[in-house]
């Protein structure tokens, strides 16, 4: 039945439902930071569904094998219909609220406030407000349709530039100190009053971003071709890029200031968790939902070994077993302990696969958290109060509780873990894991000891994950069971899935998207889980293999087509010659 509704109206309905939903959960009404001029985050968010739906509807699409483009006018008109539908739904929403009264609705949806309604109706009561909203949505849909109908070379830079402007409008807290550090003024860019972009700044940024993207897209092929002209230039360019990335990584914490360095530190911790889990899930194909166990083991072992105190009712007390090792002496021990725990968790689940393995490991994760916070082990780990005063792994003047210094500690650990993951992927061990993931029984029959390699995967994954836990202990200096909830396992798994199972760059991107972006755009902090859900659903529908899938080819594919054609030619001509000469054909009948 849904299929019979025209596509354009369907898109409008989806946009309308999303808009009403965003209003109900409070994203629209409660986010009042200004992005550009007096336009708040809430307004921007509210305008996105209609624009996006208009854009999608007007975009070139394949109809029965043919790429069909809409003219700009067709795009605008279909976008307008989308907007009309969206606006109609919002008008219904406004009408229902007016009919029942805001107070009644607020009993259930606390985000529905007078502020929200006046935002929706532009401050006009009654029918006028609804009509204004519909007109606004029609305009937004038409804008989306117009963008969608323009050719790629205009549309893509437009969307990118708009994204840049909106992001920058939310990032004064990071951009302002960075520019100040460089001695640059930014009062032309950011309004001192609203702390968002000025209109002049927004237009300037849009133009710069648009021109840059446009020029890059037009010339990138030529630039890439020039750098690849000889092996020497290619190597040179690669060196320059590597040096730039390296320099950027080193300069980053000083540019962005201490708050954002902390976010980077947390991203790094999740990169470690992701890399470790990637070995277990991505390489070896063992679905582990209790990965938080290793995070907890790493954190608590570090706390005990480096001399943290447990929290008691009367103050602090040393745990029953306590050493005052340097963090860097403790780390190898932590890794070994985590690897042993990996064996311990791995041994009983050797015979389990898939769903069953997931459920049992889920249980192990909870067991770990409950054990560490239990009264039984209170003497060692402080029970529910947990541990505190964990030393910050000082070396000389460097104190890693300082977020900017901590960043470098995390960076170093991440580089080591990245190197290990990378080496393992392309080795005899990695191949054995991959074979096991593809088909356990066959891997065994081909000569891979699945028992040994499963245990190895748990131990290795646990060891890398425990580094994340150890760094977490240093970062926050205090632990309790609230830090080791199931959510950590889920987030780490989401990082791996979002990036693409088994893909190392995928883990980095996954951690940046799921940890970094919500951290940077802290306006959305309370909607973090909502966004996780939305992002994961979108990924599973649009790109189930992950953002950076672990398959070698993409650009190589084209070269391969050429190679394949040549090969086919050679083989067929050979085969003709061979079948003419040999008597092989005679028995075939």
């Amino acid at each position, binding site marked *: 039945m849904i299929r019979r509704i025209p596509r354009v109206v369907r898109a409008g309905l989806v946009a309308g439902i999303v808009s009403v939903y965003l209003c109900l959960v409070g994203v629209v009404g409660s986010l009042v930071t200004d992005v550009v001029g007096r336009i708040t985050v809430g307004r921007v968010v509210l305008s996105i569904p209609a624009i996006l739906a208009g854009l999608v509807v007007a975009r070139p699409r394949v109809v029965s094998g043919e790429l069909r483009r809409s003219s700009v006018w067709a795009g605008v008109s279909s976008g307008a219909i989308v907007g009309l539908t969206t606006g109609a739904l919002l008008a219904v929403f406004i009408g229902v609220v007016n009919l029942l009264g805001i107070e009644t609705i607020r009993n259930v949806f606390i985000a529905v406030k007078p502020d929200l309604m006046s935002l929706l109706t532009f401050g006009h009561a009654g029918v006028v407000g609804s009509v204004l909203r519909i007109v606004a949505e029609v305009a937004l849909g038409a804008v989306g349709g117009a963008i969608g109908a323009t050719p790629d070379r205009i549309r893509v830079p437009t969307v990118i530039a708009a994204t840049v402007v909106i992001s920058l409008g939310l990032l004064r807290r990071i951009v302002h100190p960075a520019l100040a550090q460089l001695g640059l003024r930014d009062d032309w860019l950011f309004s001192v009053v609203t702390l968002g972009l000025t209109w002049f700044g927004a237009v300037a940024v849009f133009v710069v971003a648009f021109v840059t993207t446009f020029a890059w897209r037009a010339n990138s092929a030529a630039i890439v071709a020039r750098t690849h002209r000889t092996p020497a230039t290619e190597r040179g360019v690669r060196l320059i890029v590597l040096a730039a990335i390296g320099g950027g990584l080193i300069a980053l914490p000083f540019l962005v200031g201490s708050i954002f360095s902390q976010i980077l530190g947390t991203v790094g911790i999740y990169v470690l968790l992701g890399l470790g889990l990637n070995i277990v899930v991505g390489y070896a194909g063992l679905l582990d939902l209790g990965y938080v166990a290793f995070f907890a083991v790493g954190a608590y072992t570090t706390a005990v070994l480096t001399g943290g105190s447990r929290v008691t009712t009367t103050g602090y007390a040393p745990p029953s077993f306590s050493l005052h090792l340097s963090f860097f002496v403790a780390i190898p021990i932590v890794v070994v302990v985590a690897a042993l725990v990996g064996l311990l968790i791995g041994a009983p689940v050797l015979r389990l696969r898939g769903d069953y393995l997931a459920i049992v490991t889920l249980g192990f994760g909870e067991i770990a958290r409950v054990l560490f916070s239990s009264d039984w082990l209170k003497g060692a780990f402080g029970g529910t109060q947990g541990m505190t005063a964990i030393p910050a792994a000082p070396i000389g003047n460097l104190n890693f509780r300082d977020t900017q210094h901590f960043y470098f500690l995390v960076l170093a650990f991440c580089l080591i873990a990245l190197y290990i993951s990378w*080496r393992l992927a392309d*080795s005899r061990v990695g191949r054995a894991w*991959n074979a096991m993931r593809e088909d356990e029984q066959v891997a*065994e*029959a081909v000569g*891979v000891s699945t028992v040994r390699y499963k245990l*190895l995967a748990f131990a290795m994954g646990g060891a890398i994950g425990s580094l994340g836990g150890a760094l977490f202990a240093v970062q926050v200096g205090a632990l309790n069971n609230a830090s080791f909830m199931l959510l950590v396992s889920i987030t780490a798994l989401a990082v791996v899935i979002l990036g693409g199972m088994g893909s190392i760059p995928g883990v980095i991107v996954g951690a940046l998207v799921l940890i970094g972006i919500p951290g940077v755009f802290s306006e959305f902090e309370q909607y973090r889980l909502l966004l996780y859900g939305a992002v994961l659903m979108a990924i599973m529908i649009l790109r189930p293999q992950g953002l950076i899938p672990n398959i070698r080819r993409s650009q190589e594919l084209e070269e391969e087509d050429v190679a394949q054609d040549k*090969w086919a030619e050679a083989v067929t001509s050979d085969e003709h010659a061979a079948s003419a000469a040999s008597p092989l054909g005679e*028995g075939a009948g």
Partner: protein
Amino acid sequence: MNLLEVRGVSKHFGGLYALSGLDVEVEEGEILSIIGPNGAGKSTVFNVITGLYTPDDGNVVFRGESIVGLTPNQITRLGIARTFQTVHLFPNMTVLENAMVGQHCRSRTTIFGAVFLTPSMRREERSIREHAERALGFFGRRLAGYRQDQPAFSLSYANRRRLEMARALATEPTLLLLDEPTAGMNPRETLELRDHIVRMRDELGLTILLIEHDMRVVKGVSDRVVACDYGQKIAEGSYEEVANDEHVIEAYLGTKAAG
């Protein structure tokens, strides 16, 4: 001395006897075919020999020692390789990687070697690659060239079968078990494969145990043939002897009218 002896092996699943007291001897250097109607227990013998099933009774002796109770990977290491009745590859790994996994049991690099790039690891990685390429090269240009870097799922059906055999060859076996290798192949590919099977024995010195339904292949390659029905051996000898044995004809065509 016999390379492999299956001595009185029984295997039942619930009340169903897949094998009941089966005896098969395989001499070194021969090609022995096992034939029999569907459900005769042919694939079960393979699963017992390779350790996927533990026999309920009887013994499997390889080079004079019992291999009952060993895990499949240990048996592969001893030198018994197999292919499956339905093709089982590692579909998302490349063709070359599939063959390289075959070399797993002949190499020893650990996590330590892989991470620290030890010279012995590099040497071994090179040798794994060479062995795998040689195994793929056995099938001429079918699995060579650009195909080596393509994922195994992109191969044609016949090439998947060949790759499965190449992977088995890469384990450097002395005894190769082929479970219906020509199933699903066209007549021309079947003939090509028939030559390959003979070459595996003549050039690589393998002993081959073959389950096959295509009688032209059985006739063309077998030194000896064993016929099974209901988990028991019903005839043994040259192809002609077995093909003309009345038990065999009965097993395939049914009994003559009762009376």
